[in-house]
């Protein structure tokens, strides 16, 4: 075995720290009332039933008192006992036990091994003289098995060795119903239903007297210590165990509560829910059945009786009787809370659930949870606090109100009364400790953020959101903006003042916006951008404002600030017009002409806007297209004429211009042509010529001025897009003609012509081309063209042949069908006449026309010469 220091104090905490005031001890019967100055006389037993208090003495007297409870103004109860009667029982023995059976109006008195029945009021023995003899101890069955209300069940330890007897006791008679023998001598008994709980010499057992089945509980040495067997409720007993334990056991022989730890020399035990009370020679100790902890210790010398009677706990010395008055549970709980013993308070409160009406309990319990929450909160135990606030359904404003200035001035909130805690505000709670204060604020932030979207917030969303805003603003917390850009209930005046105080102007703008005051919002932001007020929340505030205006439905506002935005940056500013959401555009809330007027002063912006109209929105309005083209042109001209030659770098604007000139069919070509004249923009003028179908001129410019042959080819392709092949052929031929045209024949052009032919063989009519070509050109040179042309022409021919063949056969098929439909035998007779000459047929030879008409062969032959006549059908 491993030596280990015997534990001191064991699981009990030091008494003073743990003490709860659960009971107060008050005197009930002073010794003078009992035995006066008779020194030798002692109290042996007590019984209390309603207001009746009975005391049995060592000199065989029974006293009857009436108890009166008085509540002092201070709230403590006192008792006065008025003596009614006392009677000597006529023996020389002490009165061992007293039990009242109020239903029978009888008092059961054990004296000299005999239980007598006496009248509860007169203390006279029943006239019948009914009694139970041979009892050393007895117990009443508080959970009787017979349903008879005028009968009590009494269980006795018999003077006969190892015997228990069960009696039915009526008003004036007794009847034995059962006798059971026990394995050892019983010393104490308690009973519940059919179950006896017995202290035997060496152990406790449960014995079912109806079936005889016994169940061992645990061993116990009765020689060392007096056993205690006490019924504490339905089917459960409390027993004195080894090592000063108070053990719980059920009739099933199991323990469902952990034991309580008493001192070694406990002589009596009682129950007053939720407490177990024990008496030893110096103290009354109080343990909670809920957590097994010792809760209270009352010094009490020489006590030898401790019993509870229907909830009333009585202790007695040999000279006086006292009552342990329980403090109201709520008071106990409040005391616990006051000493910050949250867990115990909650256990006690929960334990009281069954003893308090449900509604009342819920109100009380909720309040206790809230109080407990504040205690945890004050100790910065935020997790616990939060849980308690949640389960206690705390009105969050109670918490918010702890923080100075957080509740909106308009809030109608007042703290609950009596208060849930002792703190005026956070300053007091933290005693000015900044770090603690910051922690508390962080907690409130997270707590409010959590609850704001739950039902907890119902009814005080304004208060919560406003408080949250204030906390965020003060702490410079990012979530301030999140709060403001989502749906929120921040109160405007309070929040605005606070944000201003903390110089959160950007946020203030958001607040205005969420309160439908966009004008104020934008004005504020504009001031920030202009540097009139300072707030560095967003470095891209200008862009933000532009974006804001872009999405704003307030046209006035947009117009008001468009100028400002454009002055800052034309390119960005113009977005308020160009980037508007589509659906809004469709409502065409901005008239393009108005915008254009507005943008007059901002050429770059105007270009962007026109691009937006022409390109993005594809508005088919000549004015915009022409204007855009002109603006491009101006820009190009302003940039200085680019050489425009082949391979020259083309500026972006120039590229856009060309693009527009090519793609758009709406601008005024002649107008532009005039502007371009002499500007040194050959490519552009080529495009314009092209638009006017002046292909020769266009191609001439491209070939002769620009010498850009690939551009010339592209031109042919561009202009013939979507046209019939002959049109395209014509273009290519025009180009070829230019290459081969009169004038100083440059080798360059020759090469271009050859390339053109070779690359686009199919675009040409080869026969025509061949006639154009100078005879000096070798076949080799034109090989690709020729092969291409040959192949093409062969291909065309073959395709044509196939088509002809197919058409012929198709024709035949139709003819065949037709013949089938019309062909039938022809009968010649004298009556049939030739349709031509109207004479009968003399020979079996004739000609039949498809319409069925019959003629002589010679008539048909002569008819043949006439072109209008139908061609002859098949002869039969």
């Amino acid at each position, binding site marked *: 075995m*491993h030596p280990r220091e*015997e534990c001191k104090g064991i*699981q009990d905490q030091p008494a003073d720290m743990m003490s709860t005031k659960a009971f107060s001890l008050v005197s009930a019967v002073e010794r003078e009332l009992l035995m006066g100055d008779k020194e030798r006389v002692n109290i042996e037993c007590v019984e209390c039933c309603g207001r009746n208090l009975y005391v049995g003495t060592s000199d065989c007297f029974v006293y009857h008192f009436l108890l009166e409870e008085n509540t002092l103004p201070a709230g403590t109860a006192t008792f006065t006992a008025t003596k009614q009667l006392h009677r000597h029982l006529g023996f020389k023995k002490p009165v061992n036990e007293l039990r009242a059976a109020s239903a029978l109006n009888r008092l059961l008195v054990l004296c000299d091994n005999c239980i007598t029945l006496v009248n509860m009021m007169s203390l006279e023995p029943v006239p019948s003289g009914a009694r139970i003899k041979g009892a050393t101890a007895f117990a009443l069955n508080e959970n009787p098995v017979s349903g008879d209300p005028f009968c009590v069940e009494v269980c006795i330890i018999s003077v006969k060795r190892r015997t228990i007897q069960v009696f039915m006791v009526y008003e004036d008679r007794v009847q034995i119903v059962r006798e059971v023998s026990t394995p050892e001598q019983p010393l104490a008994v308690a009973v519940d239903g059919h179950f006896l709980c017995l202290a035997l010499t060496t152990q406790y057992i449960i014995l079912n007297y109806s079936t005889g089945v016994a169940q061992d509980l645990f061993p116990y040495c009765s020689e060392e210590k007096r056993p205690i067997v006490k019924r504490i*409720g339905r089917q459960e007993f409390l027993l004195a165990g080894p090592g000063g334990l108070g053990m719980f056991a059920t009739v099933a022989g199991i323990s*469902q509560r*952990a034991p309580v730890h008493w001192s070694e020399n406990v002589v009596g035990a009682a129950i007053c829910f939720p407490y177990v009370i024990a008496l030893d020679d110096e103290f009354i100790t109080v343990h909670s059945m809920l957590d*097994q902890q010792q809760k209270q210790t009352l010094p009490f010398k020489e006590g030898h009786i401790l019993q509870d009677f229907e909830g009333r706990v009585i202790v007695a010395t040999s000279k006086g009787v006292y009552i342990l008055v329980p403090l109201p549970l709520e008071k106990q709980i409040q005391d616990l809370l006051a000493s910050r013993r949250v867990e115990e308070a909650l256990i006690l409160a929960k334990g009281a659930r069954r003893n308090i009406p*449900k509604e009342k309990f819920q109100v009380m319990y909720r309040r206790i949870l809230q109080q407990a929450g504040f205690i945890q909160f004050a100790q910065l135990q935020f997790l616990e606090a939060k849980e308690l606030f949640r389960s206690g359904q705390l009105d969050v404003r109670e918490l918010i109100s702890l923080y100075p200035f957080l509740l909106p001035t308009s809030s109608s909130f007042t703290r609950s009364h009596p208060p849930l805690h002792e703190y005026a505000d956070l300053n007091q709670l933290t005693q000015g400790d900044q770090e603690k204060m910051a922690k508390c604020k962080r907690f409130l932030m997270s707590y409010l953020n959590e609850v704001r979207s739950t039902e907890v917030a119902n009814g005080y969303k304004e208060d919560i959101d406003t408080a949250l805003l204030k906390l965020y603003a003060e702490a410079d917390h990012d979530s301030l903006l999140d709060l403001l850009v989502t749906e929120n209930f921040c109160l405007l005046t309070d929040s605005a003042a606070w944000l201003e105080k903390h110089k959160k102007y950007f946020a203030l703008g958001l607040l205005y916006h969420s309160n439908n005051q966009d004008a104020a919002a934008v004005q504020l932001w504009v001031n920030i951008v202009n540097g009139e007020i300072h707030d560095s929340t967003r470095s891209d505030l200008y862009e933000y404002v532009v974006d804001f205006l872009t999405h704003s439905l307030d046209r006035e506002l947009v117009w008001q600030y468009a100028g400002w935005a454009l002055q800052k940056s034309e390119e960005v500013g113009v977005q308020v017009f160009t980037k508007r959401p589509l659906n809004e555009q469709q409502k065409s809330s901005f008239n393009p002409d108005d915008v254009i007027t507005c943008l007059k002063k901002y050429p770059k912006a105007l270009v962007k806007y026109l691009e937006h109209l022409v390109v993005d929105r594809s508005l088919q309005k000549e004015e915009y297209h022409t204007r855009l083209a002109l603006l491009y042109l101006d820009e190009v001209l302003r940039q200085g004429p680019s050489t425009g030659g082949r391979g020259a770098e083309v500026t972006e604007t120039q590229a856009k211009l060309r693009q527009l000139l090519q793609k758009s069919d709406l601008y005024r070509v002649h107008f532009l042509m005039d502007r371009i004249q002499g500007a040194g923009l050959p490519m552009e003028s080529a495009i314009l010529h092209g638009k006017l179908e002046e292909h020769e001129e266009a191609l001439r410019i491209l070939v002769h001025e620009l010498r850009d042959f690939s551009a010339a080819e592209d031109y042919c392709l561009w202009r013939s897009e979507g046209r019939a092949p002959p049109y395209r052929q014509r273009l290519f031929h025009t180009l070829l003609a230019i290459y081969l045209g009169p004038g100083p024949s440059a080798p360059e052009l020759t090469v271009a012509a050859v390339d053109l032919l070779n690359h686009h063989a199919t675009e040409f009519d080869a026969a025509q081309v061949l006639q154009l070509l100078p005879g000096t050109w070798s076949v080799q040179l034109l090989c690709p063209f020729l092969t291409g042309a040959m192949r093409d022409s062969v291909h065309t021919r073959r395709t044509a042949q196939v088509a002809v063949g197919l058409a012929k056969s198709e024709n035949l098929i139709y003819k065949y069908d037709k013949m089938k439909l019309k062909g039938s035998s022809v009968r010649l007779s004298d009556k049939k006449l030739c349709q031509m000459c109207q004479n009968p047929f003399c020979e079996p030879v004739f000609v039949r026309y498809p319409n069925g008409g019959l003629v002589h062969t010679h008539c048909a032959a002569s008819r043949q010469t006439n072109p209008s006549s139908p061609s002859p059908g098949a002869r039969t």
Partner: protein
Amino acid sequence: MRKPDGKIVLLGDMNVGKTSLLQRYMERRFPDTVSTVGGAFYLKQWRSYNISIWDTAGREQFHGLGSMYCRGAAAVILTYDVNHLQSLVELEERFLGLTDTANADCLFAIVGNKVDLREEGAAESQEEDGHSPGMASGGCASLKVSKQVRPEDAVALYKKILKYKMLDEKDAPAAEQMCFETSAKTGHNVDLLFETLFEMVVPMILRQRSQGPAQTVDITSYKPPGRTKAGCCA
């Protein structure tokens, strides 16, 4: 009071670490403990079941309470200290008999605790007392040579228990499954131990329920003496 659906009992010599194991599991910490007086229990919610776990006192003085605590138990955790062979021997000699009152199909787990001390060897066994190395060291001297327990020893005990219960090895859970080595100090295997048992106990609870009324009596509702009429206040 919630009525537990099943009961698990920790048995074993004093100082082997029963209380520490339970605290480690239930409260996730390893606080200083004092030798348990009488017993204590925790209610653990496992799935939808309430399982009570009883911590008993290993001290000789409270030995007699063991049978009552074990009555109706669904599982018993027999705990020893891997650094003290004697604590394993005690399980067989003193504690096994207490389990006679447990359910007929009671499970047995054998748990060797304090494995964290094993490397340090038996010579330092005094250290783990934690309390007062000077106290009663006379009786300690011979214990310092106490032998370490090997896992096989625990398995052997488990098989003996099956014999004692007259169970066929085939019908009972395998020894490997039911023998654990733990450390309440480091938490090693502690969750595994309890949760393995919970998993095995739940089907037993279900089986018991399906076999009609419970063998135990419901005493959940405490009534102050004198109130005899039932049902008037919920």
